[in-house]
């Protein structure tokens, strides 16, 4: 597998089309629109190769795993809430382990765990709302990066993780008693959008 030498292939991938959302995306394809106005990354793909995508994923997975651990230890969750978030935290850790192992197997250097600023939260709703936002960001990050992945096996693996992040968001909303699945298509975010969302939590 020749990951390192894949180079910067100009990706014919419409970041703008992603912003339209699923149905709009399908229409854009049908109309032959491979690019549209207002693209953030029209000229340069933000990822040079699959290793960069995997390290992007690992950055977020470390963040999520640590957040879950912190919140699970905070004493602010109980009962079924805690049962779910403990499960999800374990699953995020499994994602960390798997992505890290894959990067290493491919001969890359995994990013290290970051230092985070987590807010002090007082209520169960605050905790679950934060987890919901973070998980939704994760889904959107994977979705926004999927088109840059060259290797089909890595793509399939990333999608298998992304799916779980999506499940987590729905289950957290279920716990909150709000519409668990609000959209027919989960939203995608560009790397710039993801960074903007998570930056406040990184030291």
């Amino acid at each position, binding site marked *: 597998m020749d990951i390192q030498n894949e180079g910067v292939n100009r990706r*014919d991938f419409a970041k703008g089309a992603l912003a339209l959302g699923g149905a709009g995306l399908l229409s854009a394809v049908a109309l032959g629109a491979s690019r549209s106005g207002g693209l953030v990354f029209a000229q340069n793909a933000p990822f040079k190769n699959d290793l960069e995508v995997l390290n992007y994923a690992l950055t977020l997975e470390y963040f999520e795993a640590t957040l879950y651990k912190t919140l699970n230890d905070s004493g602010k969750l109980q009962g079924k809430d805690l049962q779910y978030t403990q499960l999800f935290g374990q699953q995020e850790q*499994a994602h960390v*382990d798997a992505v890290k192992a894959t990067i290493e197997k491919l001969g890359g250097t995994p990013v290290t765990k970051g230092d985070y600023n987590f807010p002090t939260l007082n209520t169960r709703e605050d905790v679950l709302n934060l987890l919901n936002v973070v998980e939704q960001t994760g889904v959107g990050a994977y979705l926004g990066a999927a088109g840059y992945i060259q290797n089909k096996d890595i793509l399939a693996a990333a999608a298998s993780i992304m799916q779980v992040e*999506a499940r987590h968001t729905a289950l957290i909303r279920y716990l909150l008693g709000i519409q668990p*699945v609000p959209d027919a298509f989960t939203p995608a975010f560009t790397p710039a959008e993801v960074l903007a969302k998570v930056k406040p939590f990184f030291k």
Partner: protein
Amino acid sequence: MINVILPHDEGNGISRRQFLIGSGVLAGAAALFGAGGLTPGQLGGIKIAQAAGLNSDMDILMFALTLEHVEDAAYRAVNASGLLSGKVAEYFKTFGDHEHTHVVALTDVITKLGGTPVAEQASYSFPKLTSQDEVVKFFAQVEEVGAGAYLGAAPLLQNKDLLAAAAAIHNVEAQHASVLRAVMGDAQPSPAFGSPLTYDQVIAAVGPLLAMSGGGSMPGMPTTGAPATALGGPLVLALGLGAAALGAMLRVRSRETTSSDESAS
């Protein structure tokens, strides 16, 4: 009733699930989920299995549309059945709307790309469901098959925009499944990693719903080899709608799925 085992992690807590997903043709239609996939140690030489019959983006879109029609029709039927109440009824109304949106979107893009979208069948062979609990369980299984189908097929899409859209739909199928599992009281309503299904596995699961006679295979296509009884017994034609007529279906070509080594988790 299709007998789909909902994907769970093996053992207590998190098992070491394989990360890189291989083709993993699982033995027996009844064992649709389980320890499939490959360990990171098997990274070299991994190939995503070319799902039998999915040889182009159009094939994949048509496959997806076929499944979405099943879901759309199933939700419409159950939402009119009076079997559901309260929050569950609300979930089903919303989820059904999503599936209909998926049908419309896929139909639209196939048409615009010059294909002839597969139509909803005149009827389907849904199992006879008599309680809300049975309904939730059945739909959880159907949604899990949908999520697995997309996870198995979407990475094969060549066009990156189609890939992104299919991935977004796939996420929603998984969300539906997990919510219904939560409603069922599943203590682990999400697995750690999604499980892809091959084309053959999906056909084995949903074939009976498409009311195909003779062993769960589509007329004109090679049989998957899975006898109908492996799926949990003969299905009961529901709602007295009579035998389904199969309309124009997927343009598919038979192909052996690739079997890769599986290791236990």
